């Protein structure tokens, strides 16, 4: 309000209080609005200040003019005695809709003015913002410095809430610590090698056929065995390992072919992937007990080390994407409805398809060049049949899924969707191979 307002003659002689903020600007407010604030009220009563411009009450430093405006709006609304509780509540809800930066400033200012209802309101709003977020999100929202040292952060969190995820996080952090140390030692080792997938097509076929009847658990077991066998191979011929990892993550696709090595990843990426890895590795609560049985423990160990190793190896960004897609896909089977998963699977598939097609393309080109025409034709027919069978099977599964949806049997449904997805993917691979075989010059 400017001084000019004073010149307007008002029928009711309202008295005004003058307030001065820390930056020197002076405002005038209606008396009853200002008196709603305990600190201003006290100032007026005790020192008699505020009655004119020269004797403006100086407000604490934390109150700037913009925030003062907000506070006065609040006071203006609430000091009217005739409002119902509902009205006040609705006003409050609308009032605190502002960005967090302003909210913090408002809290601080309200506290310095000792306006307790407003402090409560803003505290509750801030609590609501914090609630349910991960630490990274909270840090981002409030621009908190991430200044706990690696070591401090990796100190096993006091397991206050006994969250299985926190326990897993602890374990992963412990392993991460080991990795950190190892990395320190191996800092100068060059790690650029080409990856060659030595598996043959028959291997691929047997794998696919063998994988049809297995459950999730045994599949992972199979992958583990493969891991162990390949361990003596050089660090980055880990397309196998990559493939295994993806299988673990429930993306049934053949191993990827990494054509190029990209520069090393920053620690941040590793951090974020390792941290994001854990919440997404959504084991059933039933699987994780206080004392994991040794098999599970080993599996966990292996997976983590695998993952860490893969992080150290040089993946193109694409692979990272696919990895995360694969991870999310794993999440999905846990909590689903049929339609959602289908929609999602098509999205996930597109990423995976590209990869699979890429692989399929390159491999096919290499492998099939050596076959004669007759062999090619037979392969063609073979693939055709397999592809059609897949499709038929998928159709029946889909109708089965629909029936189950109606009966609402979720667990069955999720498993079915997994298999359905795999079938689709496989069918597409076959299709592509077919095309290549047919049209290869």
């Amino acid at each position, binding site marked *: 309000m400017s001084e000019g307002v004073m010149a307007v003659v008002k029928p009711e002689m309202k008295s005004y209080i003058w307030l001065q903020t820390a930056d020197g600007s002076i405002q005038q407010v209606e008396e009853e609005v200002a008196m709603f604030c305990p600190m201003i009220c006290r100032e007026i009563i005790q020192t008699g200040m505020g009655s004119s411009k020269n004797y403006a009450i100086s407000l604490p430093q934390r109150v700037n003019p913009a925030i003062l405006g907000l506070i006065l709006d609040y006071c203006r609304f609430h000091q009217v005695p005739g409002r119902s509780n509902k009205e006040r509540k609705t006003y409050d809800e609308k009032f605190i809709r502002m960005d967090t930066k302003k909210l913090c400033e408002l809290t601080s200012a309200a506290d310095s003015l000792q306006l307790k209802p407003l*402090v409560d309101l803003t505290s509750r709003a801030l609590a609501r913002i914090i609630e349910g977020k991960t630490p990274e999100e909270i840090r981002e929202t409030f621009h908190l*410095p991430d200044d*706990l040292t690696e070591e401090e952060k990796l100190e096993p969190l006091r397991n*206050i809430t006994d969250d299985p995820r926190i326990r897993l996080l602890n374990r992963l952090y412990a392993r991460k610590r080991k990795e950190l140390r190892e990395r320190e030692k191996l800092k100068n080792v060059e790690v650029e090698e080409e990856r060659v997938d030595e598996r043959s097509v028959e291997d691929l076929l047997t794998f696919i056929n063998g994988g049809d009847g297995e459950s999730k658990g045994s599949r992972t077991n199979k992958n583990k065995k493969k891991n162990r066998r390949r361990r003596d191979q050089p660090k980055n011929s880990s397309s196998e390992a990559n493939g295994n990892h993806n299988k673990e993550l429930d993306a049934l696709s053949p191993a990827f072919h990494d054509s190029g090595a990209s520069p090393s990843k920053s620690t941040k990426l590793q951090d974020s992937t390792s941290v994001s890895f854990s919440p997404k590795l959504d084991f059933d609560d039933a699987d994780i007990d206080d004392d994991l049985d040794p098999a599970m423990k080993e599996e966990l160990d292996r997976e983590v080390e695998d993952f860490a190793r893969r992080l150290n190896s040089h993946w193109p960004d694409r692979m990272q994407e696919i990895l995360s897609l694969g991870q999310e896909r794993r999440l999905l089977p846990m909590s689903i409805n049929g339609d959602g998963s289908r929609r999602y699977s098509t999205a996930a598939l597109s990423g995976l398809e590209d990869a699979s097609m890429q692989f399929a393309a390159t491999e096919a080109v290499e492998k099939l060049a050596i076959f004669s025409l007759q062999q090619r034709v037979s392969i063609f027919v073979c693939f055709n049949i397999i592809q059609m069978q897949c499709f038929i099977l998928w159709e029946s599964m889909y109708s089965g899924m629909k029936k189950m949806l109606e009966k609402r049997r979720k667990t069955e449904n999720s498993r079915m969707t997994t298999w359905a997805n795999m079938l689709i993917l496989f069918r597409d691979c076959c299709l592509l191979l077919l095309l290549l075989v047919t049209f290869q010059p």
Partner: protein
Amino acid sequence: MEPDRITNLPDNVIEGILLHLPMRDAVRTSILSSKWRYKWATVPYLVFNKVFCPFYQNPTDITSKIVSIIDRVLVLHFGVIHKFELSHREFEAVSDIDRWILHLSRRSIENIVLEIWQSEAYKVPSCLFYCQSLTNLELYNCSLKPPSIFEGFRKLERLDLQNVTLEQDFLENLISSCPNLEILYLADIKGLSRMNVNAPKLRHFDFDGVLEDISFENTFNLVRVLISFLKNVKNDQCRALRNSSNLLKILVNLPTIKVLKLQEYALKYLAVGIEPHKLPEPHVELKYISIYINLNNHEDSLTFLCLLSTAPNLDELEMTAHPEEQTIGGIDTNFWEDGCWNLPFSKLRVVKITGISGAKPEMDFIKFVLLNSPALERMVVEPVFTSDRWELVTKLLCFKRASNQAEIIYKNP
């Protein structure tokens, strides 16, 4: 780099923020940044309820998990603890609670809420009675035994005991030795047959259970009373001894009462010894009466009428029909229509009548109220589901009303 605004808020503000977070999120803030590492540990409110500890798949583990969590939190926490609440529904009573209460008694605890939902009553240890800074005590499913030397809780303002076992004398002793007691809620107290409430500062009193006798003493600040007797304990001996009615006896000690709620069989208790010519003094502050009554019973209706006559400034009346199997002492058919009841409800604004079935005494009563309440604004009638409820409505429409602003609202059962 955006400045960090939240960490530099004053401590009391951050405490306020953490207060509004459930325990789990509050503790998680410890890994946000170095300054936030121990902020959660000074928040003086420890609430362990369902929100704090979500449902685990095997319930037998829950108790041990909660025990370990509370142990750790109590050790890591520093500063005073003002409130400790343990009300998780899956938690079973264990002897660890004794240890915690002992620990709390050394931390100037002010508010203890202990609810044991599983297992049998938990025997509260005697160290609870040494928490002299206690202002609020709430127990559910416990059993209390007084220590050898019990001086009372000097600062106790609110006491809430539900489903608690304790001795008769101990309860009276407890109440009278807490000079600052303002709110007293008792429900399902086992081992209690009569009660004498002696608390000078008591303002709210709620009782729910079965008693032979209740009396108030020295309760001149009592503003709100709710009595709900689940059974009518007929005590003919007492009746013979008494020469004054229970109603008189109770009301004489409640001079400042504003809200009186008598539920279930409470009115029957008050009806003992009623005499229409010995009316209690007018209670000018009595503004709200809520009552469960069987209008077919003569004594009940008489008591009700006497009660109404002591409330000249009655503002709101709520009546719920409370049918009984045997009607002892059938009522005179013209009880309410007799003009000798001269009770102008001069300030009565709102009347709520629930559960009636359209019997003559009930309709007479409604007619009586409508005729005598010139300031009536609203009457809400909600009968039980009977086949002739439309007759009820037609009768209602016929009644003459003293107030020209009265609305009669019929609520479908």
